[in-house]
């Protein structure tokens, strides 16, 4: 990179940082040695990240900066670094990682076989993450498994690569306690529990199975409402956190940038829809992700189409699809990535803070990890 380019680059970054004074309450920018595709909360203050290179990779449990978490006397707290509280080595890539709530245990998958690796995240006496067990998968498709942690007190994981091979495995005994009966080998985009015994198996085709583990009959898939996307469109999905009284909703996002919200009780129908303001040419489908804000009404975050993470307010969406503008767009990864080729850096993952309404973490393919607390300009204006 020439000298002039470097200066221009600095200017662009400076501009964005100055703009960020108004648009973010908190902003922290980190650089990992190797990029991560997973960001998983292991407590209210710690997250797990892991590399996805084909060779050996690291699993890291990071403590969020104390300055971000400080409730009072924030100004007196100068600590703004991530602290690596635990770390370990994985023999292969990590494409999926789930923490089992209430334990110091995490489960990973390498994205090339259906088996799972079980890890002890370590305690106060040691900073080492150790592999403790393996769980066999049912699929020989060479596809990686999706993983969901159970919501009940037993340490259980739901896992599978296709709708025909979903298993619920008890981690204490290593035995599978439930097997999904389905003949269709539909590749999965995600698995998610919505209650102790009910889970969603979301398929790349857009089909979603609502499965009650107490029932013995084979569940029927709900296809996405007809859209103009045509064939070959892939889908990912996320169910809203169950709120007391309110009906759960599911957001589906297609590779052509179409978003569909459905009522959890009627996944074949659409409550509202929108066409998101995203690029649909460059993405790596594995990176595309949609997620509901856990502490902010009607908001979803979408990433993976480009180097940005977008926040949308779905309350304005109508039954007929219309172009939607993001409420907020985090451009940090694009702005601060200094790549030799001019290809934009892709965001590999994002996750909402479980309690703080507007705090997110995001990671990009250049190894950057950002922690940001954005400001709702429309709310700030009035």
């Amino acid at each position: 990179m020439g000298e002039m380019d470097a200066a221009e680059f600095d200017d662009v970054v400076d501009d964005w940082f100055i703009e960020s004074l108004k648009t973010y309450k908190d902003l922290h920018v980190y650089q990992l040695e190797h990029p991560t595709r997973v960001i998983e909360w292991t407590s209210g203050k710690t997250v797990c990240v892991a590399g996805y290179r084909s060779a050996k990779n690291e699993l890291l449990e990071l403590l969020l900066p104390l300055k971000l978490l400080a409730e009072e006397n924030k100004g007196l707290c100068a600590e703004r670094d991530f602290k690596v509280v635990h770390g370990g080595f994985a023999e292969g890539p990590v494409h999926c990682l789930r923490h089992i709530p209430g334990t110091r245990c995490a489960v990973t998958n390498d994205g090339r076989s259906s088996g799972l690796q079980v890890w002890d995240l370590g305690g106060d006496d040691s900073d080492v993450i150790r592999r403790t067990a393996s769980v066999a998968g049912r699929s020989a498709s060479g596809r990686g498994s999706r993983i969901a942690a159970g919501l009940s007190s037993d340490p259980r994981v739901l896992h599978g690569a296709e709708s025909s091979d979903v298993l619920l495995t008890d981690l204490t005994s290593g035995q599978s306690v439930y097997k999904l009966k389905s003949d269709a080998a539909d590749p999965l985009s995600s698995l998610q529990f919505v209650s102790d015994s009910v889970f969603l198996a979301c398929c790349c085709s857009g089909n979603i199975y609502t499965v009650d583990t107490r029932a013995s009959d084979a569940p029927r898939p709900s296809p996405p409402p007809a859209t103009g996307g045509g064939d070959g469109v892939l889908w990912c999905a996320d169910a809203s956190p169950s709120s007391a009284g309110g009906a759960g909703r599911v957001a589906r996002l297609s590779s052509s940038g179409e978003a569909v919200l459905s009522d959890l009780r009627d996944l074949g129908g659409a409550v509202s829809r929108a066409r998101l303001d995203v690029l649909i040419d460059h993405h790596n489908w594995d990176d595309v992700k949609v997620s509901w804000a856990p502490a902010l009404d009607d908001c979803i975050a979408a990433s993976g189409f480009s180097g940005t993470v977008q926040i949308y307010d779905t309350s304005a969406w109508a039954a007929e699809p219309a172009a939607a503008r993001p409420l907020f767009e985090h451009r940090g990864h694009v702005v601060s990535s200094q790549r030799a080729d001019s290809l934009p850096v892709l965001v590999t993952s994002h996750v909402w803070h479980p309690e703080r309404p507007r705090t997110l973490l995001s990671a990009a393919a250049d190894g950057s990890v950002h922690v940001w607390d954005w400001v709702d300009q429309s709310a700030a204006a009035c």
Partner: protein
Amino acid sequence: SSLRRLQADSRSRGDRKNTGNSRVVYCTVSHFFSFFFSLQGAGQDVGRSCILVSIGGKNIMLDCGMHMGYNDDRRFPDFSYITQNGRLTEFLDCVIISHFHLDHCGALPYMSEMVGYDGPIYMTHPTKAICPILLEDFRKITVDKKGETNFFTSQMIKDCMKKVIPLNLHQTVQVDDELEIKAYYAGHVLGAAMVHIKVGSESVVYTGDYNMTPDRHLGAAWIDKCRPDILISESTYATTIRDSKRCRERDFLKKVHETIERGGKVLIPVFALGRAQELCILLETFWERMNLKAPIYFSTGLTEKANHYYKLFITWTNQKIRKTFVQRNMFEFKHIKAFDRSYADNPGPMVVFATPGMLHAGQSLQIFKKWAGNEKNMVIMPGYCVQGTIGHKILNGQRKLEMEGRLSLTKKLCRNNNNKTCSHQGSESNHHLLDVKLQVEYMSFSAHADAKGIMQLIRMAEPRNMLLVHGEAAKMEFLKGKIEQEFNINCYMPANGETETVTTNPSVPVDISLNLLKREMALGGPLPDTKKPRTMHGTLIMKENSLRLVSPEQALKELGLNEHQLRFTCRVQLQDPHSDSDTLHRIYTHLKSVLKGYTIQHLPDSTVMVESIVIKLSSSAEDPNTKVLLLSWSYQVIDLSYSQC
């Protein structure tokens, strides 16, 4: 002189193909480093660095820091480890100071003037210039403010600095005939250096505090691929992933901007050198971009002092600053003006940079007192504050401060006379309580290497062993594993006060006589490959400080010794009904068939020779069928004889 005949070739025939006819002299010389870690504290910012390294018979003290968290004897390193056996000057070959922070140099006058050390002390030019100013500041706070005794005096600081020899970057300094040191750029603060210490073929690199990412003010640390036996690195931040510099700056600008917008005043107490310049550059740029009008002031003394030092040490800053400096004076800022004490009472928003940085005296304290009562105002503390200072108190959340009144001077005089405080002189009215209502912000701009930085430095220097100091071993098991796996080297993490001994395998250069080399060439085999070990036979002569490998004949000649022949023999019994000559012939034929490629002769005197091995045969007197085979060989061919027997 001494002659040592080293272990002869002990390789089997099978290896011969690979190594040709070459023979090796294996020589392993073990040397030991011992590290004595003299009392470092744990925890950030309050640690204390003082490391003792023994390398190739030389003793070097690396840094001589003081513990900022203690007020008693524990603040200085315990030198009795050394002094119980004699004076420091006799024991130490030199002292090296990495940078001017007090946790790295604060005990220096104590060591040199109070414990007593007259040997050389090395530090870079900027450290030499700044270190005494900081030591004097610190002495004033401790002795004048807190009334402590048993502390070093101003004169001791001066005397200590007379023992300092300045270091230039990348310049090899010969401490004595055998010990040499070389300084490398470490970033971190102005003048911070890493140092490469070499004795013979053994070497150690000590990093001090360093920073692997350049900032507005300083460049990134850099070192040669010098492959030291040990790299000693700080590891206070080894388990962190650093937030970006820009985010730190962003927070600073955000706080300043918010205060200015609500009409408040911002006080930034700074030390004359270092971060102040960086923050000025930052604010100047920001004011320009945002078209802000609020005045920014800079203490005048500060400007002059800083300009002076920056002119002297401009090569120690980063490229951008160097360029700016050539174009215009560092402090000919458009928005930043010289401060006058009357300005503090002006209405409306303003930003003031003032010394000293810890709010213990002078202009920064005066302004603080004026502005502390207004909650619209803000004080931003960009650095560490020593215990007992106002800065330290407000950083610990104290909102009510007891300020010294006018009578404090009398008190101080009285204290000096009687060497104790005369409390009756100071009545309650001398002290007034200051309500701190302004906002207090602590921002650390100090640049340290994080986990990634440590890995980068290891990649750069390629050490054979890694030693992490200042850390908590139990919390660094993962990092240790990571370093050991990624670089295939050992990683040590000694606890405070612990000694670590590391064995090295230094390569020892040996001169080989041309004749011997020619002889080896004549024996054939592949040409020498620098990457592969090659066996060679010869006699090693160690004389004075040289090592030579010569042919045994030459060695004998040079040393006037007679050659002794050493032969091994053994008897083997066989049952064979044939005549003696037939048996011998059968042995000859058999050997011919199994030892292809060797010279085998059946001599007329009824002996068989395989190369230089002699085989004779005789019958037992009692039983002619029992044959006795006599084998005889010289020590050189020991393997062949055994392998065939």
